[in-house]
């Protein structure tokens, strides 16, 4: 059922078995697994069912370097459904190598393997509405997907790996009715967690505040923090007490460290031989899910060269430079004021529009007015009005020259941090301060991958890649850390010296406090995090259900034995 937290009286103590703080993809996926389970659940949503300025303002905070990280109120939505209100829907699982200890990446290696999470991916895929769990281009669509270009198969890359797209599903809008119907689940709207109260190794209560000044608590047998990579760290750090002077779970000074996003950008000039038929768009599976090929650096190549995981996609030229000559790209460039911050950031870049610029873009449009009009009409149909949306802009460039859209792993980095800042929110709690850093290895991963592609592309005889190795860092950092991927701040580790949560996502040093969400990922993979976030919530749900189950089996066995005797 849905409850407005402001309807509760100050001082109320809500007693429950499972309290989940945070109602984004992680918290909602977790809560859904308990419908009809007999376990009583309170799901704390730090916001309303839609956007709310006052709730969103609680996300304000500081960023150490604004050129490297977007403001903390962007890419995050404090509402039911969380940041799935704004995501792009790109889904793909982590690769087995992501979980391995790699000698060439400091801090790599999970205490669990790919096999531990693999069983949960198909259900996660269904919850994300990304269709069948099939990520092989040869099987994802009937008859298999078109190749990028016939004979173009760069050896160091697996071009048969694909990404699938969610609607993109807003987990709040999509699953709200199921939560509302469930008699064993209470969803508290607009309830803001300000503190985890713990004594010794036990989390006792979550302290909640409302924007109209009420304060109350939820006391649960088990608590799960699923508030996102930044907010989860902030909440643990801010829950300082005599017993936990550095915050909860922070005895090993790990909370908030290893804050990872992805290294991403568009770069390079991949020219296919004139006349080559190149397909870089979307195909659709039988159930309507959009699928797209990507070039994934093979794991053995990563090991051979000692670099991180990375994928590349063929991409249209960068928008700001009118030299691309495409009216559609120019039209979208000029439409910047109408496009949301999250989408526009990477499309438009930071360059200011000059009148000369605008004029040249205008000429591009005038060169192909019917093409532009047709494109826009179709866009309204497949994107604006569609419930399953065409995922991104696909425009064939002139002369078969593409750039590469690169998405790479960021390696663990103790100095990349989410901390408590000097500012306070309306509840008097410290705001977050983000100091995102990268390592030379992050840039090296991209540079080496590009060099391998240059070599491999030439070997195929179908295309040639031109890029300046000196410019890789600038291109990858132009837009800073990839927005919205907040990873690693309560990383899973083998022990409290190298991690915040154990293999079951339980916070070290506590016996009933867990974390769900990408905060637990110790490494970032090449993959966008949402699908894996959901998969880990399903795994955590399975674990918690076992924990909640009364230990009946032993009783039964002994009863049977007794009867037999």
């Amino acid at each position: 059922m849905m409850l407005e937290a402001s309807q509760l009286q100050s001082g109320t103590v809500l007693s429950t078995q499972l309290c989940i703080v945070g109602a984004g993809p992680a918290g909602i996926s977790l809560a859904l697994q308990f419908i009809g389970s007999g376990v009583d659940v309170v799901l704390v949503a730090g916001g309303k069912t839609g956007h709310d300025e006052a709730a969103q303002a609680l996300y304000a905070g500081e960023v150490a370097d604004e050129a490297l990280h977007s403001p903390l109120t962007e890419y995050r939505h404090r509402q039911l459904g969380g940041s799935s209100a704004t995501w792009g829907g790109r889904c793909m699982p982590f690769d087995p190598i992501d979980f391995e200890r790699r000698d060439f990446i400091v801090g790599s290696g999970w205490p669990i393997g790919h096999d531990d999470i693999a069983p949960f991916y198909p259900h996660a895929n269904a919850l994300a509405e990304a269709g069948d769990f099939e990520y092989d281009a040869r099987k994802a669509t009937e008859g298999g997907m078109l190749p990028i270009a016939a004979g173009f198969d760069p050896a160091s890359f697996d071009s048969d790996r694909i990404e699938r797209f969610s609607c993109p599903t807003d987990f709040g809008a999509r699953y709200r009715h199921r939560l509302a119907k469930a008699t064993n689940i209470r969803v508290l709207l607009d309830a803001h967690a300000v503190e985890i109260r713990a004594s010794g190794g036990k989390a006792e209560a979550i302290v909640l505040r409302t924007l109209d000044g009420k304060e109350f608590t939820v006391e649960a047998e088990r608590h799960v923090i699923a508030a996102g990579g930044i907010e989860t760290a902030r909440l643990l750090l801010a829950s300082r007490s005599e017993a936990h002077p550095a915050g909860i779970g922070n005895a090993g000074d790990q909370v908030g460290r290893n804050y990872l996003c992805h290294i991403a950008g568009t770069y390079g000039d991949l020219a296919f031989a004139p006349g080559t038929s190149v397909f870089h768009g979307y195909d659709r599976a039988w159930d309507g899910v959009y699928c797209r090929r990507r070039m994934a650096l093979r794991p053995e190549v990563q090991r051979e060269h000692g670099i991180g995981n990375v994928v590349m996609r063929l991409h249209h030229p960068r928008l700001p430079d009118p030299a691309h000559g495409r009216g559609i790209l120019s039209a979208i460039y000029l439409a910047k004021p109408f496009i949301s911050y999250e989408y526009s950031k990477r499309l438009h870049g930071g360059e200011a529009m000059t009148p000369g610029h605008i004029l040249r873009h205008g000429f591009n449009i005038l060169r192909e007015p019917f093409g532009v009009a047709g494109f826009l009409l179709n866009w309204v149909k497949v994107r604006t009005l569609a419930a399953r949306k065409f995922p991104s802009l696909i425009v064939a460039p002139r002369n078969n020259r593409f750039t590469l859209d690169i998405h790479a792993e960021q390696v663990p980095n103790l100095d990349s941090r989410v901390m408590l800042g000097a500012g306070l929110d309306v509840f008097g709690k410290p705001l977050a301060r983000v100091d995102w850093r990268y390592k030379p290895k992050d840039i090296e991963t991209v540079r080496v991958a590009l060099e391998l592609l240059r070599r491999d592309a030439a070997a195929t005889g179908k295309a040639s890649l031109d890029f300046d190795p000196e410019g890789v860092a600038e291109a990858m950092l132009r837009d800073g850390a990839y927005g919205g991927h907040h990873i690693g701040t309560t990383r899973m580790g083998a022990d409290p010296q190298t991690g915040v949560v154990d293999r079951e996502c339980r916070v070290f040093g506590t016996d009933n406090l867990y974390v769900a969400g990408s905060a637990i990922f110790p490494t970032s993979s090449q993959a966008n995090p949402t699908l894996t976030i959901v998969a880990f919530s399903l795994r955590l749900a399975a674990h918690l259900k076992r924990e909640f189950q009364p230990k009946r089996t032993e009783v039964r066995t002994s009863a049977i034995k007794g009867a037999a005797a």
Partner: protein
Amino acid sequence: MSILVAGAAGFVGRRLVGKLQAEGRSVIAGVRKPNDAFARLGIEQRIFDAEKPETLASALMGVTQVVNCIMGSPASMIASTRNLLDAAVKAGVQRFVHFSSIAVFGNAEGEIGDDFPVGQNVDAYGQAKIDCEHLVRKAQQQGLRTVILRPALIYGPGSEQWTGRIARLLRWSRLGDLGAAGDGICNLIHVDDVVAAAIAALDRPEAANKAFNLAMADAPDWNRYFKDFSRVLGFKPVFRVPGRNLRIETKLVAIPLKIAEIVTGKIGFGRGLVPDLISPSLARLFNLDARYHSARADIVLGPPAVSYAEGLRQSADWAGKR
């Protein structure tokens, strides 16, 4: 030993008569007007209107078992059932199998077994089915051995409601993947499983004086059904129906379609030309979180034999040809 199937011209009745005849049973088709198909098959027909009790004594002459498949308006279903039961008692019929429906459970949600209480927010149809069940139980007290069958949504070849209509709505992308609007459980039961259950209800002594839910195990949700059915029908890629489309369907489009349906019904012409409508109650069903369990039927009458995949294949075969 003669079996009278009352309402034999209906969808389930036809299939049941055909199956009984194929099994070499002595079956009589009870119809309101002569039916060519039965005549061609050499099946005995008895013409009667169950709403008129005076026509029934002759209809039941020599009949040992009755299956009541009569459908109609609430008042006519109740009247027909009452009259048939009276006549059956008088004629000394040995077994009376009555088709009720899961509609007796109204909009109750959750796990619904054979003994779940009936009557929660039922519509007029469901209430009529409840009233009919009361009549059946009263006749039972007078010594008539009865069986009540409550099939879920009957799909498969011949099912206009849950196969033909759905296929047409999928073809025109009026249905598809409904997202949040299609999370309810789609409690299907294949027509051949219903027929098999009805025959077992006639034959098995232990079925007497019991009520049975008939539903498939592990029924899919509606989204799953729409997607899977679209796939076998070849309507690909499956359309994701925006929430606003369904609201427009139920709030705006359904009204003129309903009027057209009534008018063409009254003038007796053009009914087939009126597109299917998605009524608000149908849309509500797509979100009903009820799962019907047929544990009693599984044991006494035998579990459903047609798999979901096979049922879909047959459905697509049938719907695709029309």
